[in-house]
């Protein structure tokens, strides 16, 4: 086990985003805050149908989670695609780290970035809103599983892509719609029945719903049951990453 090597790679992946923290932490947190402000005034004091919360309170955890997911994805995908385009990924391939060690280092750094961005977002809000925490454990489990899943997707997306163009196709046409349409901005109760059913097949729906449950204690699904779905999905993502890295999928000729 090359612990020092894994730690070094984790530090590298962490430094990469900390060095440009305006772009990787401040900007996404600000974007989420802007969404919040816009919706606050567009929706007024309206309540979310079927739940005993106002729209503003409902929106906060969803936005926090969406930001986490997008940043976890951005961290791994940008690292891999920059590595591939600049040809520095060969130094990772040459390093004596096993596929599991590589994947672990990448994913932990992605989770760390996601947690930092969400924390910044929530800390900025605390003076202005009354944030309740219903169950901290749920928040952590959903937050971490979600970041692992998206960090893993970023890793796979980065390996699949050949250049920045194909990378941004993946993030704009697959990742963005999935996260936007997963119930950040609405409760699926508000949807027509057909789309309610469809939503149940969107893994991000469970992530955001469970995470929100951790704050508000209300949601569209049972968060304790969904933990199984979410954890299983996270595990499957990790294993897929491990396997793909092991065979050098789209990395080695």
């Amino acid at each position, binding site marked *: 086990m*090359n*612990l*020092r*090597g894994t*730690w*070094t*790679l984790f*530090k*590298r992946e962490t*430094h*990469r985003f900390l*060095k440009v923290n305006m772009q990787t932490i401040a900007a996404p947190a600000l974007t989420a805050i802007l969404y919040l402000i816009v919706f606050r005034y567009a929706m007024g004091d309206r309540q979310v149908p079927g739940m005993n919360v106002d729209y503003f309170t409902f929106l906060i955890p969803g936005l926090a989670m969406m930001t986490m997911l997008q940043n976890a994805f951005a961290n791994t995908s940008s690292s891999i695609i*920059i590595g591939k385009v*600049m*040809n*520095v990924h*060969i*130094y*990772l*391939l*040459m*390093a*004596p*780290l*096993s596929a599991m060690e590589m994947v672990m280092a990448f994913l932990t750094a992605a989770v760390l970035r996601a947690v930092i961005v969400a924390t910044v977002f929530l800390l900025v809000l605390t003076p202005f809103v009354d944030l309740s925490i219903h169950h901290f454990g749920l928040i952590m489990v959903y937050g971490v599983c979600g970041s692992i899943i998206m960090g893993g997707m970023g890793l796979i997306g980065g390996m699949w892509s050949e250049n920045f163009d194909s990378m941004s196709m993946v993030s704009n046409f697959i990742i963005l719609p999935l996260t936007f349409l997963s119930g950040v901005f609405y409760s699926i109760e508000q949807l027509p029945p057909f789309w309610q059913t469809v939503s149940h097949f969107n893994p991000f729906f469970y992530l955001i719903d469970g995470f929100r449950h951790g704050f508000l204690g209300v949601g569209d699904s049972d968060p304790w049951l969904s933990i199984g779905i979410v954890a299983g999905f996270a595990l499957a993502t990790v294993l897929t990453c491990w396997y793909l890295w092991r065979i*050098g999928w789209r*990395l*080695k*000729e």
Partner: protein
Amino acid sequence: MTSPVLSVNQLCKAYSNGKEALKGVSLSVPEGSFFALLGPNGAGKSTLINIMADTVLPTSGSIDFLGHDMFSERLWCKGNMGVVPQEVAFDPFFTPREVLSMVCGLYGQKPDMKWINELLERLELAEHANKNTRQLSGGMRRRLLVAQALVHRPRLVVLDEPTAGVDVELRKRLWEYMREINASGTTILLTTHYLEEAEELCDHVAIIDRGNVIASSSMKKLLHEVAGSYLWLRYRDDWELAATDVEALSEFNPRIDDGLLCLTLNRIDLQQSTFHHAYESARLRFGPPLDAGVCQEDLEDVFLRLTREQII
């Protein structure tokens, strides 16, 4: 006879586009040697090196590295080897000093600052050590890659054209340093297009051409046994051999080099060569030359002759 550090057995590589870059390459690199891997462009040198570096997957064959099977004990092998790939690549987020500490860490070692400073010093990067790698010139980046390959003190260092695009003076100093590294017990395998330098520096050599090894031995042996001598004759400054001339003189493998007609001489026995016969054949065909002489082949001549023979 020293035992090999590396022995490559029947290594084959076919790229996904069907290109067979290695067609059963076997060679062995003795412990402590300074080994030159030579070959024309496209011979497969980088493919072989990249397979060792684990950035290209082999199609078949095996490599034994210090008694470890390279493909089943990958991590051990990677940990004891340092590779400078042909393509210059750099991480734009870090300074040379950070890169070197990081590489140490990836290899599971605590960064040894004294060693890192020595590398920076010797590879003439000390004054750029804290600049962003983006600000380094091409030559500096390549030297940084050399430092990267040495920083974890590997037992085998593999350099794929480390001196391409590096000016003469700097190249000399780089070679000088490589020689020191080699003298301290590290085996070095390198590819280069500077055959004169390879001849001077390296004690072992392999020549590969279109995916096959066409010669592999100690440098001394190659220069003694494979290198022949040739007769050169001056006629006119610019002329070309007609196909019929080549045909007529074919036993001497005739070629024009720098306006001189060159005819390879073979030894009949230790005393006598085919000199007289070659001279007479040329005189009969082209008349008496303005000037003539005999030269011993150096590495470059051997290289050119062997790789040319393959074409015919």
